[in-house]
């Protein structure tokens, strides 16, 4: 009888890869009551202040931009003919020179006001790019400004520009740009906006990429079990560490990442690649099944991805001993293959 013993050698190796992400910008500030996760929030055009068709299209596009780029369970925004929230195209704002003004009462409703085309401000007459076939320099992109306002709806505030490394890290600047400066027509939330939405609402799913504006430690564990036919199943689990400073993200499972498997001969110090584990489910589990022919130590490695704000981690070592009937020792759980 052939005997396979798989054991967790807990103290053999604890390696932590530390290929830290460059993440100078901070998550966009936010405050106040959040909406429910994935809450559908509809808005209507304010009676008497209905935007012209080009502005409506820009606003609806901005709602789609918010929905598609949120990468979190933030509110889902859309227009409806009847809704508690409304958007008006009006110069009647409680502050003299604002071009946009948003009030939110999450999780109930919001109101948004955008000043009309041509409205006289002390800087000059307000011009929305969408009002022109060929938008002139100096116009405000209505879709970007509406996305900014929807950012306020989602509870985002303005960042201190001193905390922002790249202008496009956020669409929530306290003084938005006009055409043709970089970022004037940004139609997605910036990575630091997404970071805050992920902090406040949690990522959209365990497969959702974590914003590079974050820098989160991960925890990668490895276990083993027997399968029929003399096979061994290695199962890894990847999650954000329990102790991260943002409770909404603590212990969150991470699926669909690349988990590399390595092995080494017993007594050797040299690790060799042994393929990858396959993402098993939305609980951050990964697996690989194989039939060992000799005894090895195994570990799994999650390398810090360039496109995510996650630190890498390396699991503890699992030993799989293969013998022909003799006791492998160690006192570990023993699994037999007949």
């Amino acid at each position, binding site marked *: 009888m052939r005997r396979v013993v798989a054991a967790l050698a807990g103290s053999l190796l604890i390696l932590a890869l530390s290929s830290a992400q460059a993440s100078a910008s*901070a*998550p966009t*500030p*936010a*405050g*106040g*009551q959040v909406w429910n996760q994935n809450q559908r929030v509809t808005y209507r055009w304010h009676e008497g202040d209905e935007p012209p068709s080009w502005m409506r299209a820009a606003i609806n596009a901005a709602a789609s931009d918010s929905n598609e780029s949120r990468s979190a369970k933030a509110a889902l925004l859309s227009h409806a003919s009847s809704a508690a929230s409304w958007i008006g195209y009006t110069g009647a704002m*409680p*502050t*003299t*020179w*604002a*071009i*946009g*003004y*948003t*009030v*939110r*009462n999450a999780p109930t409703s919001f109101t948004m006001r955008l000043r009309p085309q041509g409205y006289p*401000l*002390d*800087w*000059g*007459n*307000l*011009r929305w790019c969408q009002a022109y076939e060929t938008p*002139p*320099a*100096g*116009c405000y992109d209505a879709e970007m*400004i509406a996305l*900014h*306002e929807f950012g*306020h709806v989602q*509870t985002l*505030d*303005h960042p*201190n*520009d*001193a*905390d*922002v*490394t790249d*202008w496009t890290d956020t669409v929530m*600047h*306290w*003084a*938005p*740009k*006009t*055409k043709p*400066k*970089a970022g*004037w027509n940004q139609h997605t939330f910036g990575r630091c906006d997404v970071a*805050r939405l992920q*902090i*406040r609402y949690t990522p959209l799913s365990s497969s959702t990429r974590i914003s590079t504006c974050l820098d989160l430690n991960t925890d990668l564990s490895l276990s083993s079990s027997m399968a029929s036919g003399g096979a061994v199943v290695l199962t890894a689990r990847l999650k954000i560490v329990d102790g991260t*400073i*943002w*409770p909404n993200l603590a212990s969150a499972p991470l699926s669909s990442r690349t988990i590399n498997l390595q092995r080494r001969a017993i007594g050797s110090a040299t690790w060799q690649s042994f393929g990858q584990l396959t993402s098993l489910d939305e609980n951050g589990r990964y697996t690989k099944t194989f039939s060992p022919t000799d005894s090895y130590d195994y570990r799994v490695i999650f390398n810090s991805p360039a496109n995510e704000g996650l630190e890498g981690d390396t699991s503890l070592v699992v030993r799989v001993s293969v013998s022909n009937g003799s006791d492998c020792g160690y006192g570990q759980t023993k699994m037999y293959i007949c």
Partner: protein
Amino acid sequence: MKRTGLAALAIPTSVLMATLWLAIACSSSPGTSTGPAQHSGAPGQSPSPVIDVTGAPSTTTVGTPVPMESKDPNAPPVATLSGGGAAVQGMTGSYCWTVAGTSACADLPAFTDSGPDLPVVTLSSADTQLQFSLADGYAFASWTASYVDDNGNVVALGGGGSSFDPDAVHSSAAPVTSASFGPPTAHDQSIVQVFVRFTDGGDASYGWNVAVP
């Protein structure tokens, strides 16, 4: 001379903001803050009343009459800047402010020469420190001050305080009630802007024209 038309609206704004983060990021934040607050902004607290500067005593600092640009009941407290004399109320720019669970955010163009006339603070000497504070000593968590130089670059004048993250474990910000920073380089008038974040969330930007001999 004040420029008019939308180009005037756009170009200075863009120039201003394109360089803001660069200048501030490179700053050594030489300014100082004063704290802790005598009273801080509690959630839901109403903004403090406007400081009346019209009756200020005669000093080297002159306050230019400023229109009340904000009638927003959800607006943050007004801010003042002084350079050794009377405090001059600034123009409030973009902000987010929460009162009793209702959050209001106003978005304005950047402070530029082509925008509204900003209140003027005239310094008597080029080494006079500027003092920033909110009405009634209202507290804030962090601040950054900067000005726009002749080339349109935004140059940091100072910054301080601590960050506040309402979503983080053990998040707290040590409140400050005033900030002090050096003046821009000598110029007839330079736009000085101060951005603050409040201890309980929200933010506000304020602008002045500062004349340095």
